[in-house]
């Protein structure tokens, strides 16, 4: 065995280009990939295929006849007399989902920036505790959190009782605002945490320097702090908007079924309505919208030169 005297650069040892963590061959990834192709890839493919099939005359499932009717049915209504008209019901559902998600994202963003900055400027021990406090809800079932919110905002809940003392009527449960409040509540930690991760890395002496040089407080925020935490903001927007768009529980439990979001309509078509092909077409639409949003986010972050990895 020969002894190399020069120190080889990382990876180029005498045993060839193998000295990296994960020495193991790429074959190791084959099994997980095959598994995911089965358990994730095929279900997605099935949804796309189903969306082009007919609904059986009775029962659930699909009839193997090609059709594009499901996509037409998203926008066009067949009337009984054979004429067709624009059907806005599903467009409304999409619009509802989009606006709810947008409001949720905006409100969580407005709340999260101050919170993240505030946590990042506490001393080390407090910071650890505060981060744990924000992380804990993340570990708690969304179902239970939504249920807790339902009790808080119920007519006879604490808010209702308090306002009742002043004879103010409180009735928001089972309405669009309740759904939005639930979405904000559930997804808030998803916005705080990535922004905090950026804020924590920020060197606050820069802000001090800017202030020393005569910048106003607001200028410091706009020109120094916001650009520094922008990667966190962009990840936060993605982490809130994407799951909010596909959310099911909040509109079901807090909106009382009156304000359907896309996920509720999809679920209904695979459940009681028993129209799998139409539900699939809606699901495909939801996938397309989600991917469109991902592309936009990636475009923005690339143009800005921030490195935002969604996956």
């Amino acid at each position: 065995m020969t002894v190399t005297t020069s120190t080889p650069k990382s990876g180029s040892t005498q045993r060839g280009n193998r000295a990296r963590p994960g020495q193991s061959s790429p074959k190791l990834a084959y099994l997980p990939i095959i598994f995911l192709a089965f358990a994730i890839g095929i279900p997605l493919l099935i949804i796309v295929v189903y969306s082009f099939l007919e609904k059986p005359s009775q029962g659930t499932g699909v009839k193997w006849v090609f059709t594009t009717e499901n996509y037409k049915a998203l926008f066009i209504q067949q009337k009984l007399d054979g004429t067709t008209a624009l059907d806005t019901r599903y467009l409304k559902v999409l619009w509802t989902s989009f606006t709810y998600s947008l409001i949720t994202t905006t409100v969580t963003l407005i709340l999260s920036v101050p919170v993240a900055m505030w946590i990042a400027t506490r001393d080390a021990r407090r910071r650890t505790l505060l981060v744990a406090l924000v992380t804990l809800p993340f570990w708690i079932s969304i179902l239970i959190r939504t249920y807790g919110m339902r009790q808080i905002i119920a007519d006879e809940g604490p808010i209702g009782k308090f306002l009742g003392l002043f004879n103010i009527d409180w009735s928001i449960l089972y309405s669009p605002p309740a759904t939005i409040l639930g979405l904000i509540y559930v997804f808030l930690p998803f916005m705080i945490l990535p922004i905090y991760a950026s804020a924590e890395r920020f060197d606050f002496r820069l802000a001090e320097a800017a202030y020393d040089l005569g910048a106003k407080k607001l200028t410091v925020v706009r020109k120094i702090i916001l650009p520094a935490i922008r990667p966190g903001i962009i990840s936060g927007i993605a982490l809130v908007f994407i799951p909010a768009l596909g959310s099911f529980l909040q509109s079901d439990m807090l909106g009382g079924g009156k304000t359907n979001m896309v996920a509720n309509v999809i679920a209904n078509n695979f459940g009681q309505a028993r129209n799998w092909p139409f539900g699939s077409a809606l699901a495909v639409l939801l996938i397309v919208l989600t991917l469109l949003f991902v592309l936009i986010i990636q475009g923005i972050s690339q143009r800005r030169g921030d490195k935002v990895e969604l996956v």
Partner: protein
Amino acid sequence: MTITKTPTTKRGKLVNLRNFPGFNPTAWFVLFFLYSPLIYVVIYSFNSSRIGAVWESFSVKWYGRVFENNDIQRALKNSLQVGLVATVLSTILAVMAALGLLRMKRAGKAVAIALIGAPLIIAEIVLAVGTLGLFIAVGVPLGKIGLMVAHTAFCIPFALLPIRARLSQLDMAPFEAASDLGANESQILRRITLPLLAPAIVAGALLAFAISIDDFITSFFVAGPGATTLPVYIFGMIRSTVTPEVNAISTLLLLFSGTVLIGSYLIQRKRR
């Protein structure tokens, strides 16, 4: 982290970011907002009244009901079984994927990352109904086995997150040394890679377990009548009536989540 406390500046005082106007009240409001529903649930789980919103007197009877309720026991058992299997399988697969991905070619890597990332991006409802379609198409009976497969799949990206993060931070030196000294692939994997990754693997497993135990939508569609998990059961209870029992279950689950979080925190701190 640099938070300088003392320097005095030309303008007399430090640009006190610590006391930025509005930050303090916003932060306290948000913490209050995040915790009041949870605290409410915990407090009212000790309420003896049948009617959820009316406080009668302190009682632990709903906890008694929870422990007597066989359906809850069964649902909990299903949840734990599915959760444990999904955790073990998804963590193993995530470790394999993380290591294999390092040396994969571009094209293969892109496909792999798209598949792994899909559950993070695509709405759960879509994957849930797709999985339902798959199981019916290939004849997998709806139940625990199918549930385990589905949970394993969407837990992989979560288990992978800390493992990939750790892998990218690892120091190359031990690997080069081992390789130079003649260790083969499996020796390096066993003696260096896995021990160095251990804290991240534990973190990934905990994350996977939490995701699996909390899952509602996929379980709702794929469980079938026989394998109802705890969230699916709770959803049924909440939907039909308001029962104080749910407050008691929720409190127990809160306690459990808190314990797991504190546990994972302690493990990671100790290993560091």
